[in-house]
């Protein structure tokens, strides 16, 4: 290989003699002006198009909710755990208000079974409030999909480093709640071009990890695409071997054991089945018949439970893509759930 014969000059140096000779005061004023103009124009344009700010969910946002489970007075708190439906169907603040509770903590995680979080809250906190575990019978499984979040919490939020993470996350959340431009809806804009009409973000995240699904602001063709992909996904599940009731019951017993730990220290655990419709619900019932599986939750495990089909009005809520409700149904769903929980004396 060839060798360079001379000394290579420095690429990045702090040698004061070689600082580029700019008028730095003026340079930085121009930079600030340009940055302000770019963000200002983007903000104005995106809002004019109809886009709204959205908070991006991440490990730190989840941990900020998890921290609240170890506060001393949790007996008057609600804790939401589960998968996407818990985030998309319930307004945590509204639920807490309707039920006269201090706060609602949201530890749900999209696409992941809730076992790891339930276990973490049961075994590693002293939480003694109301736990709403939103799950379908198929989600009563020893799924560790949420374990990376609990592990992240213990690694990063149980030492002084959490201060930096919380400050960092609070700044991010504040910016994302306030501005569209800092979290530009690039995918939605791409979809708008693809479908030739305005396409909303699809989902709006909030600081308390609620997800608002904007199905009413999507082109029908796009909605149909999501719907068929959900249905296809469900139909594929039919091809797999049927679930073993015995195995499922063993999993249920583990859920019951964890629930008993929370109940034992004065808390309450309720399994909540939130709305799904049409083919999605149909396929689910074919694999997990309600009479057999949900009945086992109520009868043999004697866990407190709420099923959407038993709540008048809730079974009429539409799921545009069969699996989740739209943003404009959240208030109704939350109100009906709060009513049912109150009826149960919770």
């Amino acid at each position, binding site marked *: *290989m*060839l060798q360079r014969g001379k000394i290579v000059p420095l690429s990045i140096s702090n040698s004061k003699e070689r600082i580029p*000779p700019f008028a730095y005061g003026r340079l930085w004023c121009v930079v600030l002006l340009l*940055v302000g103009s770019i963000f200002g124009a983007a903000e104005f344009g995106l809002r004019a198009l109809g886009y709204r700010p959205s908070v*991006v969910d*991440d490990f730190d946002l989840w941990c900020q909710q998890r921290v609240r489970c170890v506060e001393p007075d949790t007996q008057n708190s609600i804790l939401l755990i589960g998968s996407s439906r818990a985030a998309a169907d319930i307004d945590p603040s509204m639920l807490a208000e309707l039920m006269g509770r201090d706060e609602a903590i949201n530890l749900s995680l999209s696409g992941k079974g809730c076992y790891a979080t339930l276990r973490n809250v049961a075994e590693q906190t002293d939480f003694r409030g109301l736990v709403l575990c939103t799950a379908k019978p198929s989600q009563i499984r020893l799924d560790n999909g949420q374990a990376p979040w609990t592990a992240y919490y213990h690694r990063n939020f149980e030492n002084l480093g959490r201060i930096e993470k919380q400050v960092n996350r609070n700044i991010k959340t504040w910016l994302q709640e306030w501005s569209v431009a800092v979290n530009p809806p690039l995918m939605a804009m791409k979809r708008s071009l693809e479908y030739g009409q305005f396409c909303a973000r699809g989902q709006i995240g909030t600081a308390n990890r609620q997800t608002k699904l904007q199905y009413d602001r999507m082109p029908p063709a796009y909605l149909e695409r999501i719907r068929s992909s959900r249905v296809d996904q469900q139909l594929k599940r039919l091809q797999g071997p049927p679930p073993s009731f015995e195995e499922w019951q063993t999993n249920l017993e583990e859920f019951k054991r964890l629930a008993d730990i929370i109940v034992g220290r004065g808390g309450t655990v309720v399994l909540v089945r939130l709305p799904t419709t049409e083919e999605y619900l149909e396929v689910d019932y074919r694999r997990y018949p309600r009479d057999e599986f949900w009945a086992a939750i109520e009868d043999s495990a004697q866990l407190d439970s709420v099923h959407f089909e038993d709540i008048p009005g809730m079974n009429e809520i539409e799921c545009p893509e069969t699996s989740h409700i739209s943003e404009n149904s959240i208030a109704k769903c939350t109100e009906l759930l709060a009513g049912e929980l109150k009826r149960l004396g919770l």
Partner: protein
Amino acid sequence: MALSLGLRSWTSRKAMLLIASYVFYAAWNPPFVILLWLSTLVDWTIAKQLSKVRASVPRIAMLIGSLCTNLGLLAYFKYGGFIAENAAVLAQSLGLNWSPPAIDIVLPVGISFYTFQTLSYTIDVYRGKLERSQSFLDFALYVSFFPQLVAGPIVRADHFLPQCKTPPVVSQRTIGWGMCLMVIGVFHKLVIADALMSPIVESAYASDSPVTFISAWAGTFAFAIQIFCDFAGYSTCAIGVAMCLGFALPDNFRFPYAARGFSDFWRRWHISLSSWLRDYLYIPLGGNRHGIFRTYVHLMVTMLLGGLWHGASWNFVIWGGLHGAYLCLERLTARIWEILRLDRFRVMTAWLSVIATFLLVNIAWVFFRAKTLTGALGIVRAMFAFSLDKGPLTTLAIVTSLGVTVVTLAIHWFLCEQSLEAWVANLHPLLFATCLSMMIVLIVVCATTGQDRAFIYFQF
């Protein structure tokens, strides 16, 4: 910066910076500040004694004391688990039924960096190359100066301590350019390393499906760019922050992917480490003063230990070993190049050298990035099994990886003979301001929406 510059007395400013550095380190894990104090105290005391004692035996004993303390801490915290694991494997191969007690050691962040700094100080005082510091405050600040504490550049005492003697002139120019460096550094880290390259690398290296020729190369190119932008980004930020506080830190990178050969690569990549290894390991071992064969042995030992410095894993040893082998091979073939008089085709051979170096560096990166040796061998195998199958990477990921790699190589090639400062100085101020503004906009968007990823070198 405001607190530091707001103080009138230079001693108070240094004391404030020292406290800030300890708070910075403690924010991660408070008890580990004790290690920093221990390392500072031991080397301060030993250097003080070394400057008083003239007899060689006690001086050697003191030097060994410093080496044992610093390398002992490093061995326990960084290599404890690795040593125990390998001892168990060795015991089993000898037919002994022994397994080590389960140990869960947390690696103190930056230990490899500040250990090398304190060691170099004591060794330089021992060699008589450096006067011991007269001020404990200055020495403590040298060990723990927060901009470079956790991931370098590894600063030498003879570079830093003289700066502590007199208060620096912090002007609009130094702050202005320091802030520019911070923006450039953060842009490298957040936009290129984290937002663009990291997802591609993760898809290629953590994929369940088999990696193919295209994915292996595209994923590894992406890692080459990621690790450069991550580490050089940190170094640039550290230099910028230090500059705003009135301190000068040494360079750590000089457009390394424009390197023509491996000696050139190591003059451009992680310069503060490679020069440390050269001065405190390679040359003391004998360097090139004892014949060709011994030179190769010294090169291999230096690079193997350099690999192990990065982490307690055989993958890092292999990475170091490959670079050692490359360096040996380069020396071995240097004569052939001369005989063939290839310097006649200067431009073509320069290009070929850059490309060959980059490709071979990438093969070594595989061992650096892969979690396991089996995983690394799988990627290397895929790199040599040509197929047109895309594998786990999407077309967009492949195009992004190749595109960014080509652009990076072109920039490194274009700038390798000049300094960033010289290049920036030739730009129109408005153009430079526009570039900075675009970088800030992208930084804000990526910082707000992207995933939080730690600097890769924090783990070392």
